[in-house]
């Protein structure tokens, strides 16, 4: 185990440095834009580090519920990601080819929207997910 500061703190600090100190000091607009992208990506990885494990576990749980599967939680992160990819592919096939009644479509949509909300919290925390966002 490494000493303080932990990896989350390091990433957040690099993101803050890139976005708040470096980018405003760069005159070349194209380069400054790319430094802001770098800051955003770094912050995104920090949030993924903080939230990703719980989000991935919840996503797999929802997918298994959709398909009526029961199984133990995967032993490693790689196995967890493999299981999610497998079931999301099955879900895509179901959406493309299945005769979906309203109830099944509502269940699938609820899962998909929840997954998107969890991605957005990491990728774009300020994205407004309210249905009446247009006012």
């Amino acid at each position, binding site marked *: 185990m490494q000493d303080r500061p932990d990896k989350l703190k390091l990433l957040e600090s690099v993101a803050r440095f890139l976005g708040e100190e470096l980018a405003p000091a760069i005159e070349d607009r194209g380069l400054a834009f790319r430094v802001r992208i770098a800051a955003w990506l770094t912050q995104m990885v920090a949030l993924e580090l903080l939230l990703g494990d719980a989000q991935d576990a919840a996503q797999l749980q929802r997918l298994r519920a959709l398909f009526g599967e029961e199984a133990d939680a995967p032993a490693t992160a790689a196995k967890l990601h493999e299981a999610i990819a497998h079931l999301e592919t099955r879900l895509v096939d179901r959406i493309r080819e299945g005769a979906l009644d309203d109830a099944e479509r509502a269940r699938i949509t609820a899962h998909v929207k929840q997954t998107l909300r969890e991605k957005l919290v990491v990728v774009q925390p300020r994205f*407004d*997910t309210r*249905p009446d966002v*247009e006012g």
Partner: protein
Amino acid sequence: MLEELSQRIAAHLSRETGAPATVHDVRPLPGGACQELFRVDVTLAAGPLEGQRRFVLRSDARESLPGSLDRDAEGQVINAAVAAGVPTPPARWAARGLVRADAHAYFLDWVEGVAIGRRVVSHPSLAAAREALPRQLAAALAAVHRVTPAGSPHLPLPDRDVDPVDASLGALRAMLDRLPEPHAALELAFRWLGENRPPLAKRTLVHGDFRTGNFMVGPGGLVAVLDWEFAHWGDPLEDLGWLCVRDWRFGSVDRPAGGFARRGAFYALYAEASGRAVDPAAVHFWEVLGNVRWGGGAVLQGERYLQGGSRDLEHLAIPRRACEMEFEALRLIETGPPRM
């Protein structure tokens, strides 16, 4: 390379204008995926543009995106649009092999203005321009849509007899089939599109990328409509739907038309300019389709970095934003067409 290009430009413009052209400066500008751009300063010795002038030279890039026009077809489309009343510089002095072997190119009059979306939508210096923009853009779009296959049969655009919805859904299916990972949200929205096809009102020229970011804006408003490489025959309401796609609002989410106008106000301005009522449900269909297309497009931009050898950080970053377009597509489906 620029020295030789200068000489070729001078020879081409001398031939085209019938009098010696003197090139003072040729400078590369940041281009797009489909074209190379140069700023050209030149003195023309004759013709209506006699004197010292500045132009943009647009030439085919080495590669192009699926479904995009080359500079030859693009130039013809722009001139048809200009003839129909779109306020944008015409394509002049078409050339082939000017910048590189076989590449088509043309010149545009240089105009001063801002195209960067976030500035157009929110920069204080453009407040007056934003007042004028909705009416100007509605008029420009109505003019684009006055160009029809029957009136301009010479335009080299494909699919003049294919149903526009079929063509768009077919292209979208091909794009979704190229995605490197499952995207259930895009598939759900695609399924909805197939089940909610709008009736075809009219087939016209469609700009294909009519959105904030592709409008050059000066202090008085619109000065040029840019990036015509996705022009095609189709449903004119496709352009309205694309203009309203949330990502082109650049933060002004409550102004669905390009980040500068309310939906109902813009539809009314377009109806007035075009003389045709707007079917909000049809625009809604095209807006959902636009979000699916841009969501899939965002994923594929990442592949240019991950597989294509691009070293542009923007290409690497954009696929993570696909979830924004995916969520918006499902939000639109859930809320339904707006009540007008």
